């Protein structure tokens, strides 16, 4: 295998790092896109069952080909560019929405050592990349030259900027107790402690000592991805579809793909940071990628569950929750964790 790789590397010469990275990116993105497609199917089916409906069941057995049919339909639709819009930025908007949500996956580890870029500042990179997601929304809303789109973009960006703060503080607590910014190290640091020594690994994971942060991270994650019940961005009764109201065909699909890729990203991040990633919950079962997949799937289910359960928040309540509840809570817990770490009762020595 190595010999074959060597000969291919020789063929590409100085461009080899580029080619090899591209290969790894494709190997990651193709399954991710399939997951995104079937996430839409799962969403319609699960919410259907919760509301005592059947959900999609026409295309293929059990409706399993529905996402493929949807994708084909969107591909063949005309991309309409409004006459008075800013053409270049109008096209750039959806691209800027999806690019960061895919780029963020570069530092996500799937197992010990299975990661595209095992960088030391992985968590910082994720914070930086997810913080530029908001540009796609703002640019799309402004370039559409429509009042609904602009209002939607304003709401979306205000909400994303607000919840990023509490998200960041929750992450600071995690990196404090694992004393590393590297995601692989963060997962491995959860394999130490009383629980892991007694074969009950799940007691050593970060969710228990950081329980408030775990909840804040999950709820902020739902708000950050603009999902229900925080979806005032596209509150159809008020501003139609928000920033994407003017988009059609594939340009609309890019926003849609970005939203679902972000949902999967937030779920896998929660699993890595708070639920021990690929670590097995009990000692007698082996660690492995399947645990990470299982935990991620659970959080994705929570996303759908929340959507089918809660009515939409009012906008001022969303802002109040972000600024007046979550940020004080994260600040207090940050203080508690730092004091706890320096005290003789520290469990992270």
């Amino acid at each position, binding site marked *: 295998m190595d010999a074959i790789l060597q000969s291919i590397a020789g063929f590409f010469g*100085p*461009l080899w*790092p*580029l080619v090899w990275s591209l290969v790894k990116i494709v190997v990651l993105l193709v399954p991710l896109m399939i997951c995104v497609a079937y996430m839409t199917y799962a969403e319609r089916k699960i919410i259907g069952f919760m509301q005592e409906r059947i959900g999609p069941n026409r295309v293929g057995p059990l409706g399993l080909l529905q996402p493929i049919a949807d994708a084909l339909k969107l591909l063949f639709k005309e991309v309409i560019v409004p006459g008075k819009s800013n053409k270049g*930025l109008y096209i750039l908007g959806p691209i800027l929405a999806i690019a960061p949500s895919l780029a963020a996956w570069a530092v996500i580890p799937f197992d010990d050592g299975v990661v595209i870029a095992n*960088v*030391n*500042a992985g968590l*910082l*990179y994720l*914070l*930086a*990349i997810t*913080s*530029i997601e*908001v*540009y796609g929304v*703002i*640019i799309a809303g*402004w370039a559409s030259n429509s009042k609904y789109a*602009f209002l939607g973009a*304003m709401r979306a*960006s205000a909400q994303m*900027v607000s919840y*990023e703060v509490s998200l960041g503080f929750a992450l600071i607590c995690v990196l404090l107790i694992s004393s590393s*910014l590297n995601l692989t190290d963060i997962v491995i640091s959860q394999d130490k402690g009383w629980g892991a020594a007694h074969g009950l690994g799940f007691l050593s994971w970060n969710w228990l000592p950081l329980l408030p942060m775990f909840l804040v991270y999950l709820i902020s994650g739902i708000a950050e991805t603009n999902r229900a019940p925080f979806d005032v961005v596209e509150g159809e009764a008020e501003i139609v579809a928000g920033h994407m109201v003017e988009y059609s065909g594939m340009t609309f699909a890019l926003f849609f793909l970005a939203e679902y890729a972000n949902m999967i990203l937030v779920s896998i991040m929660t699993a890595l940071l708070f639920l021990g990633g690929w670590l097995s919950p009990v000692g007698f079962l082996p660690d492995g990628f399947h645990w990470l997949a299982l935990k991620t799937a659970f959080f994705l289910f929570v996303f759908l569950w929340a959507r089918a359960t809660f009515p939409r928040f009012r906008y*001022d*309540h969303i802002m*109040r929750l972000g600024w007046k509840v979550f940020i004080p809570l994260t600040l207090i817990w940050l203080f508690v964790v730092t004091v706890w770490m320096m005290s003789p009762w520290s469990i992270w020595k």
Partner: protein
Amino acid sequence: MEFQTVVFYFLSTILVLAALGVVLARHPIHAVLYLVLAFFNAGGIWLLLSAEFLAISLVMVYVGAVMVLFLFVVMMLDIDFARLREGFWSYLPVGAVLGVLLAFEMILVLGGPYFGLDAMPAPEAVAASHSNTRELGKVLYTEYAYPFELAAFVLLVAMVAAVSLTLRKRRASKYIDPNTQLAAHREGRVELVKMAAEKEEPDPTAASGADKVVGQ
């Protein structure tokens, strides 16, 4: 040519073009977006210098937070293009002096050998496992702890000042405290009263009254 050199020239070409775009763009929104692109590429070049913490915080702080708010403000402005160009000639001398100063500094750096700048020791090569973030943190929280605290304090003062300058109470606001709304219970709002059923009796005067209305 090494791969890193290719990346460097790629990033710096875009950086220079984006910086030109900031100055030359006609629409302020485009200028702001070019500035975002310039920041992003500068971050990339810092990454090449293995200063990953600085690079990522540049993207996080400037691109992710400062420029978003900047974009917000610029989008909300009612821009008058004629007035924007009005002051060009009066600003030109100041701008020209600054430009000359910048050009002089760049010549100093780029023409290093002629000005004896190469006498400065080159930075030491670092191992692949070297963590720039850890090193920065160590220095920042030990050697420079007090300046760091001072900087944080100045920022806090600026933040409080900014909030108190813009804070104004609106008198006509119909705002209701969300706490009282969330504390609302069914018992406080709805009262069910039990009462006997009322039977409607046919009223002879009502019928004649209706006739009267029709008659008029």
